[in-house]
């Protein structure tokens, strides 16, 4: 060191063997090993793919072969340079990463496909969002496909139907689910009745959604024929938004019960005892201490259960039917939900001879549905944060 340096900074105590190679890091593979292995794997994989593919070059095959070669190459390289323990460690780490990436592929693929197919349509004709299919005929779609006329129709009725049916289903399910889980946690105390409820709730989580739809249809029909009448006019009433909401609540209630039950169970017993010790009655303790403490978890559980039933198709098709006009009244007349709209547009295009405009509308509707579900998930997170007990003021 020079003298000028010494005045600028306090002299470092000299470490014995400062420049010498650290014996603790000896025998390790250099930091650029993985880059070398990756480059090698890519090159070799490109060669194999070109050989196997003959004339055409498969990008997917290239990446898959490269990934396999990279994992094997890293294992062998580590094994040769270092030791088998580190090699096994690295192998498992790479396999875990590979599994993670594999799981991510379908998710990203679905999002990408829907966005790629739906977004251009939606940007080109945003009117889809506030128009329904009333008055749209096959000739409109033929004109769109052959002469480039603007896309007709829209899915406002689907948005309204999904909104009203889901809202009604939430209004039905949340009180029932919440009170059931309160019974299970606070009153049932593991007796035979609460064990039976838990069993049937678990069974309910597994029932196919079409069964829920048929159940709701049959139940509403029974009620209407018993109390109102069984003429053709009355039987026509069975298909309405409310029936679909009942079908969705059958699917929703078990989810709400299970998630809320978990949340109530993690509320510390000490808080209940603290409240009892102040001379507070049990129901007030539950509603003013237990529920607020668990509120963030309950709210996010409810929102997730809403997101889950928003995408249901079959039970709504059975119970609410499919119409082309916008119907705001869930107690009278058929309603269209967004998933049903997508299904019908793809299976029964408005113009069977010109299916492309229908497919475009379906993709746009699918994108909107995914955005709605994502927004619900986002809201669940925000709600959970907003309601969470304030942790510290320290």
């Amino acid at each position: 060191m020079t003298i000028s340096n010494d005045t600028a900074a306090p002299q470092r105590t000299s470490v014995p063997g400062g420049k010498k190679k650290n014996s603790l890091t000896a025998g390790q593979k250099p930091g650029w090993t993985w880059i070398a292995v990756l480059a090698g794997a890519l090159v070799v994989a490109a060669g194999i793919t070109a050989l196997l593919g003959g004339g055409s070059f498969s990008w997917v095959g290239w990446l898959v072969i490269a990934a396999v070669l990279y994992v094997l190459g890293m294992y062998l390289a580590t094994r040769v340079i270092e030791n088998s323990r580190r090699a096994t460690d690295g192998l498992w780490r790479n396999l875990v990463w590979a599994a993670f990436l594999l799981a991510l592929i379908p998710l990203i693929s679905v999002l990408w496909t829907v966005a790629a197919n739906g977004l251009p349509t939606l940007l080109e004709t945003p009117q889809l969002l506030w128009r329904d299919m009333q008055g749209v005929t096959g000739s409109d779609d033929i004109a769109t496909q052959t002469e480039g006329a603007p896309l007709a129709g829209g899915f406002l009725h689907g948005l309204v139907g999904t909104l009203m049916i889901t809202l009604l289903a939430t209004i039905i399910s949340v009180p029932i689910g919440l009170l059931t889980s309160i019974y299970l946690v606070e009153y049932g105390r593991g007796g035979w009745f609460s064990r039976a409820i838990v069993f049937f709730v678990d069974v309910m989580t597994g029932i196919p959604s079409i069964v829920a739809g048929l159940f709701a249809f049959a139940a509403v029909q029974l009620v209407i024929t018993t109390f109102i009448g069984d003429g053709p006019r009355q039987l026509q009433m069975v298909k309405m938004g409310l029936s679909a909401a009942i079908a969705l609540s059958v699917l929703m209630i078990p989810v709400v019960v299970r998630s809320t039950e978990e949340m109530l169970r993690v509320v510390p017993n000490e808080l209940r005892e603290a409240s009892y010790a102040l001379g507070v009655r049990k129901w007030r303790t539950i509603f003013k201490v237990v529920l607020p403490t668990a509120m963030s978890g309950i709210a996010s559980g409810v929102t997730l259960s809403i997101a889950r039933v928003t995408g249901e198709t079959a039970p709504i098709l059975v119970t609410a039917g499919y119409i082309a006009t916008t119907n705001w009244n869930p107690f009278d007349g058929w309603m269209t939900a967004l998933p049903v709209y997508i299904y019908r547009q793809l299976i029964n295009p408005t113009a069977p001879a010109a299916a492309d405009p229908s497919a475009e509308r379906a993709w746009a509707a699918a994108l909107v549905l995914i955005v709605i579900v994502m927004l619900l998930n986002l809201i669940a997170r925000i709600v959970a944060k907003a309601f969470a007990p304030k942790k510290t003021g320290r």
Partner: protein
Amino acid sequence: MSKRIDAVDLNVYYGNFRAVEGVNINIEPRSVTAFIGPSGCGKTTFLRTINRMHEVLPGARAEGRLLLDGEDIYDPGVDPVTVRTMVGMVFQRPNPFPTMSIRDNILAGYKLNGTRMSKSTADGIVEKSLRGANLWNEVKDRLDKPGSGLSGGQQQRLCIARSIAVEPDVILMDEPCSALDPISTLAIEDLINELKDNYTVVIVTHNMQQAARVADKTAFFNIAGTGKPGKLIEYDDTSVIFNNPSNKQTEDYVSGRFG
């Protein structure tokens, strides 16, 4: 304020298991009584029967008589909620309500019961209770902050303030200092000494020095073995229990020869 407690042949059960057997004890008003004894001897169980918190646990019940100023709290038809408004309780671990501010924690006994009060009355209760718990000066500038943001010792004093806010006659404390450091323990012990001017204080403690420091009278509980019920072995002035106990078991326990 401040009532006397008399237990007459009190047996406490968990289901079919008799946890505490035949307790007879007379606790004077405006005094501090300490329950000491080894773990599992039933002192906490007995303490919880004094405000009927015991029966919150499934299958738990008590037989015998427990008189609060001569009135049996186990009389059929007595509402446990009424008993608990007269007998407050402080628990082993500080448990302020996490969703509430410091101020709301103090007023919890009123707010949770839906009692309406003017802001000035509420402010008066908050200040009086916090002063009573020696916490006012530390938190007066942050009454709207969450109670869980306080230190452990402050949280425990907040819990004491919360229970004295509803003006009970008796305050039960279940090892109130076992989760606290010595400084916070000292603060709580000073507070217990002040509380006995107005309340009957019963405290369960594992710390014999603490019993010797704060209690006027001390009760020693013991069990004959696992699966046997706990019993009240000796109950006398604290100085007698620690210096001149009449029972051999008490002597062994307080002198450290036990176990």
